[in-house]
């Protein structure tokens, strides 16, 4: 990376070379209350993509979003959007000049304005375009029939769409969504996610979505970044983060995890109680192999070659089921299966791992 950020030239417009992405964050630090600290070495968002920042509450993802918005400037480091340095040594572009849109967790609609008034707020009210732009936005967000309502007269979903339309109306370079679904009923969320996804795709705006909900992150974004303890752990597509988490913590945060001890010999195969498992990285010595429940195939005992296990417990979800199984060697594993074949506790089953697995050094002690 590029060393001490303060070495860099101050705020010159041409100084875009270190910034690879549409949004680039470099060496940003911010500590508040002296306790929680955000440190981001290098983070880029590509133009037009939807990037999710995923992490538990208090991990610093909202702080990161507010830094990008200019609401809470970093103590050091640089942030650039669309080739323009917004934060850097001696540079701070105030929030109102960043052309960054944001939808707040509680939407923060203006209660004294109508839906249309909210949407037109950020547009130059004197220009003729403003009315037609607002109309377009209401059409896009299916709010046309509510134009004259005040926020207090809207449902949660309508409020959310108003907030979205309001922040999209001035055509921002970048759209920030801060936990946009958290104050909605669980039953509504799925539809609304789809709706928001549709609107984002229609406008093609580069978006950062902050959420603590992994389903939301996985289903809505093109790529996601997992943040733990104020640091970006891994950035990648949902598939990458699910199947190839860089470390155990990442693996544990997204989805269910089985960790099997094994011994590596420097090749791409590890010895374990489930036999010789193909892994993604060559290591030596004691290791942990990570298997998702989906990659453990469980069936009625017919295959003599596979490992035998006993079903301890069945969680039936309708679309699938999760079995807690006990291996003869003593380990307990989670396995996910389709919902069709019935399993009962106490039943003996055969187990077969499928895929190429991430592998981590075994924890000492």
């Amino acid at each position, binding site marked *: 990376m590029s060393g001490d950020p303060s070495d860099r030239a101050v705020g010159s417009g041409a100084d875009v070379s270190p910034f690879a992405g549409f949004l680039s964050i470099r060496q940003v630090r911010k500590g508040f209350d002296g306790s929680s600290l955000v440190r981001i070495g290098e983070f880029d968002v590509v133009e037009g993509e939807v990037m999710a920042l995923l992490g538990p509450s208090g991990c610093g993802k909202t702080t990161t979003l507010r830094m990008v918005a*200019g609401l809470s400037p970093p103590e050091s480091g640089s942030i650039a959007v669309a080739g323009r340095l917004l934060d850097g040594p001696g540079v701070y572009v105030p*929030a109102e000049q960043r052309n960054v849109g944001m939808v707040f967790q509680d939407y923060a609609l203006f209660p004294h304005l109508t839906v249309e008034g909210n949407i037109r707020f*950020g547009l130059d009210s004197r220009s003729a375009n403003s009315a037609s732009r607002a109309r377009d936005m209401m059409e896009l967000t299916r709010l046309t029939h509510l134009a004259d309502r005040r926020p*207090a007269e809207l449902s949660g979903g309508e409020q959310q769409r108003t907030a979205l339309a309001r922040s999209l109306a001035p055509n921002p370079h970048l759209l920030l969504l801060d936990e946009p679904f958290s104050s909605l009923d669980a039953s509504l969320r799925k539809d609304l996610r789809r709706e928001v996804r549709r609107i984002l795709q229609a406008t093609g705006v580069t978006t950062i979505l902050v959420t603590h909900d992994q389903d939301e992150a996985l289903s809505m974004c093109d790529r996601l970044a997992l943040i733990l303890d104020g640091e970006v752990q891994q950035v990648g597509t949902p598939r990458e983060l699910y199947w190839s988490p860089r470390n155990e913590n990442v693996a544990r945060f997204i989805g269910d995890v089985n960790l099997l001890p094994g011994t590596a010999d420097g090749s791409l195969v590890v010895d374990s109680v489930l036999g010789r498992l193909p892994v993604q990285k060559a290591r030596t010595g004691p290791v942990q192999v990570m298997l998702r429940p989906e990659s453990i195939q469980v069936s009625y005992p017919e295959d003599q070659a596979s490992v035998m296990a006993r079903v301890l417990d069945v969680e039936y979800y309708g679309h699938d089921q999760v079995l807690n199984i006990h291996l003869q060697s003593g380990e307990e594993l989670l396995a996910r299966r389709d919902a069709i074949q019935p399993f009962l506790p106490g039943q003996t089953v055969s187990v077969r791992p499928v895929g190429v697995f991430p592998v981590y050094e075994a924890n000492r002690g």
Partner: protein
Amino acid sequence: MSKLLFVPMWLRPQSRSGQARLPAGLVLPSVLVASLLLLPLGYLVFRATGVEPHVWRDLWSPSTLRILGRSLLLVIGVNASVWLLSLPLAWLVVFSDLPGRKLWTVLVATPLVVPSYIGAYVLIAMYGPRGLLQQWLEPLGIERLPSLYGYPGALIAITLFTYPYLFLGLRSAMMSLDQSWLDAARTLGQSGWKTLGTLLLPVLRPALAAGSVLVSLYVLSDFGAVALLRYTTFTSAIYLYWQSSLDASAAALLMLVLVIFTMVLMGLEFVLRGRARIARTHAGTGRTVTTVRLGRWKYAAWLLLGGTVFMGMGNPIIVSLIWLVKGLAAGATLQPVWQAMGNSLLVSLLAAVTAVLVFAVPTAYLAERYRKLSARLPARAAYIGFGMPGIAVALSLVFFGARHAPWVYQTVYLLLLGYMVRYASLAVGPLRTQLSRINPRMEEAGRLLGFSEIRVLWRVTAPVARGGLLTGGALVFLSTMKELPVTLLLGPTGFNTLATRIWSATEEAFYARAAAPTLILLLVSALGIAAIFSGEEL
């Protein structure tokens, strides 16, 4: 880097601490105004330095301490009674299903406009040992009523003419409560008064704190009512001493003691207000009107509202009418007061608008959004003027005006500054209460839509805090309507208002001439308040 850590955030240059730095566009005006408001303090210090040594000895006499103790007793008593009166009144006009709540609000608020010397005089005329009430009761063989003089009279009079400070603040705070709080309040009727203590009082803390400070400062600064009701307080003692000796230095020194009291009160307010911020965190931002059915309690409600309005407005009206009838019968002629009425309305509205827009909005915003001492100071500075007797404020501005700013001296501009010094603080409290309820995210949303912090303040925060703006404006309006010493000393020569007319007539016992302006003052103020509150509906 490590050196920088010891520099206060707001002193740091532009770059890295944008949020923490106070916005210059707000700091400059509010610091400017606040320092103007502090002129009287500077004057007092200047004058007090010329004090003669014997005054020091007199100051620390047991009798001074006794009088101070009496002032404190009155502060405590008035606060207690004002709370007892204002809480149910505000609750009734906000939450109950009583018909005509808007009208009640206006009627209950208007007694604030009664000048305290008139209020006290009226109280004596009605309920004194040989007042009107005694005359009505005479056929029943009642020769004398128990004496009103002393502590009880002072307590009743000052309560009657200060409770609107708390009432209006509480009302505005209650109106901005979330639906969930409204629901909580609804259950009051069923589940007893415990709910009030556990639910409502904590969220009303800022309003209670702000209102109590105003009430306390009023008690400390008033001398008209306590002198008539023969209860000597610290301020009336200073005033009377000054009046007979014209010894400005000694009076200034004593007044500084009063300023210290004011500062102690501000500290108390800070504690009472609490640190918790009660911003709405949910999207529901509008107020849905929910009302509590009073049922049989409505008779008690009528009694409370009617009784308060009778004591606050009915008494002055009755006494004025008697003056008028007696005077007319004796051949007194009425003098036209249209010009005085026009002047009163004009300066009072102007003072209200200036106090709210020029002072209260920036300072209240700074104090609420930047919760650090430097941001809160301008809002605090305004209280000092309110805690001082009007004559001290007026004389200090005479001093500065005549000697250092002769071009504004005895013009309406300096008069307006005088009103600001006295009353700007009234506009800050209700606005702060309101701001503490406004979701700061809303302001951030405004900024992200391309508006600077200051423009967001005017385009988003101020309209949303409208209730607080109007309440603050109403308080300043009513107070200015009755203001006397500043008007007399700083107004353009020949400038008269309803208040100066009333004063001038009662001072020399021309009560018939005082009657018409008194009645008009009450009427016009009630109409003014009604007009101000009609702006409340969005």
